[in-house]
């Protein structure tokens, strides 16, 4: 607002070389400790375990996966809400993964987060004017009447009535609260917004409103989104590229049309077929790929390919060696899959039954 935006206002095409955010081998482990005074580490939750990812300026990168696969942890790694265990995060040419709290302050202005729970993410004891004005207060950008004016501008921008400045979060519906969260994230005109399941707590009718709002704001302010969701149709709607996560690793990464049109990883195939279809006849006719068992514990992930205990195509190789995230033969360079036996186009996985998974490596977790 007062400072000119360094990025030109014309809409840029996301291109390969214009990278805003790079994650290299990002690892986040939570130690499990035992003991009262002398704590010894007895294990670690491998929430995020070596993620490689680039996000281009102006694009929306979708991140999907089951509950507990590490999506939210990865989001909090990107926003540096906690220190990384290993790996590096480069934002706009600067490595931010080892910065101290104080050094992170300029970064905080450029990367914002929208949270999943519109009820939990707004302090119930504060008026929304002061909640949205928080970024201005924290970074000393504006105060007094100027802050109020800017907050009301933001409220108008996200479709809230600026006259509701003095109300409390309890006076608003879920969709409106999420708009408040969007306004707060937008206050400092960040370059990157990490959306951690921004619509999954909302009614379906409200979801579309919020998604349209986010898309409109992206065009207006040339924002880059990392969009986390477990709803595949939402991700398909908003994303330019999509990354699929399983147990702390990215198993497939491709342009949206590629991923939804020709999913190569068996897990992606299973996910896509598990999604709901609005047409009951088609839904009834469809056959799902049945994944046996639960997601294994991230404390003790399976050897080799982490998906092998549940994979219908798993063989001995999957049990022994971990596949690399790389383009499969015949795929565009953009389309990377971490699988030894990627699904060929047209292949029907529903006829296969889980093989090596159940035979070789029964999960022993109690």
């Amino acid at each position, binding site marked *: 607002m007062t400072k000119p935006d360094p990025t030109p206002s014309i809409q840029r095409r996301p291109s390969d070389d214009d990278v805003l955010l790079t994650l290299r081998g990002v690892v986040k482990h939570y130690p499990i400790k035992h003991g009262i005074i002398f704590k010894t580490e007895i294990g670690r939750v491998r929430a995020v375990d070596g993620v490689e990812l680039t996000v281009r300026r102006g694009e929306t990168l979708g991140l999907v996966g089951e509950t507990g696969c590490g999506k939210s942890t990865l989001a909090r790694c990107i926003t540096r809400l906690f220190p990384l265990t290993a790996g590096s995060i480069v934002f706009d040419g600067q490595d931010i993964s080892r910065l101290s709290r104080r050094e992170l302050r300029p970064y905080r202005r450029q990367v914002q987060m929208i949270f999943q729970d519109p009820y939990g993410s*707004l302090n119930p004891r504060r008026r929304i004017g002061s909640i949205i004005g928080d970024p201005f207060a924290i970074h000393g950008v504006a105060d007094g009447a100027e802050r109020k004016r800017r907050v009301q501008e933001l409220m108008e921008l996200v*479709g809230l009535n600026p006259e509701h400045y003095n109300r409390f979060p309890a006076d608003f519906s879920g969709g409106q609260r999420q708009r408040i969260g969007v306004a707060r994230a937008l206050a400092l005109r960040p370059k990157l917004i990490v959306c951690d399941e921004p619509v999954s707590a909302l009614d379906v009718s409200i979801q579309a409103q919020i998604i349209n709002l986010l898309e409109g704001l992206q065009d207006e302010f040339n924002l880059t989104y990392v969009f986390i969701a477990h709803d595949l149709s939402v991700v398909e709607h908003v994303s330019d590229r999509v990354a699929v996560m399983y147990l702390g690793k990215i198993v497939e990464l491709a342009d949206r049309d590629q991923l939804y049109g020709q999913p190569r990883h068996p897990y992606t195939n299973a996910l896509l077929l598990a999604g709901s279809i609005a047409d009951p006849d088609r839904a009834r006719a469809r056959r799902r790929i049945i994944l046996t068992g639960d997601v294994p514990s991230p404390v003790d992930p399976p050897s080799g390919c982490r998906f092998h205990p549940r994979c219908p195509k798993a063989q001995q190789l999957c049990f022994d060696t971990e596949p690399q995230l790389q383009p499969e033969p015949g795929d565009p360079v953009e389309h990377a899959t971490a699988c030894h036996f990627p699904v060929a186009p047209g292949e029907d996985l529903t006829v296969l039954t889980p093989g090596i998974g159940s035979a070789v490596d029964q999960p022993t977790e109690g």
Partner: protein
Amino acid sequence: MSASELSEVADLPDPAVPQPGVERQVEGRSPWQLAWIRLRRDRVAVVCAAFILLLVLVAILADPLANWIGYNATDQDQVNGITADGLPVGPDAHHLLGTDNLGRDILVRIIFGTRVSLVVGVSAAVAAVLIGVIVGLCAGYLGPVVDSVLARLMDVVLSFPFLLFAIALVTVVGPSELIEILVIAFFSWAAVGRIVRGQTLAIREREYIEAARSLGAGNLRIMVIDVLPNLMAPVIVYVTLLIPVSIVFEATLSYLGVGIIPPTPSWGNMISDAQNFYQVAWWYLVFPGAALVLTTLAFNLLGDSVRDALDPRTERLFAK
């Protein structure tokens, strides 16, 4: 509720445009305002608050009241205040609540005792809560290292045999009102600290704290602006419940002779003095005791009502 209706209306496609017919300004009611409204509807709370207000007025106006009654707290009425045998005189026209064994007016002494009880009780409770909130907030928010130090400190304070310790301390330092306040505060803050610590531990995991951190807010700002307002409800309840405890504590110390020293009157030392005379002068024991009981009761009931008002989910059996 009209506020929620308006919110629904505002959810229509273009909520920025004011809807016709809903021009009426609705100011968001803060949780405090809602609690205040609930509290005013609670009859028990209103009666107790009125009684406490009366006590406060009596304490403030103790000197003019004593002048008006005609006796001072230490005046010994040798004419009407004591019998020929040197015994206390019961309630009569000269002395409304009777006199003690030295011919001093009991009503006036209770009035001055109110002042002592309120000053010591309220100051000690406020001091204890201030210390408790600061320590508890730091223990809960600043991470495991600070927490383990402060939590152990609270454990140590709570494990003191406080009455023995208070008596010993006052014996060494010498009794005074200030020492009494400090002693009571010292033995009360740890309980508050524990409660605040627990609440803080729960609040710090909330998403809005994460949101504040992702915006770049520092620890102090988060503790004061985001955590503290959410602690105010339990803290206010604790203050109202800690005041009667402190008043009783004060009376106990005075009763044991290590609080307010005669001839300055306090409910505790009056009850203590009355012990030798209760067989011939029931009023000497009953009226100071009643003052203590009623005051404690009023604060406790008000504290319960405040808690109910601040947390509408809890239900009390006989509350309307």
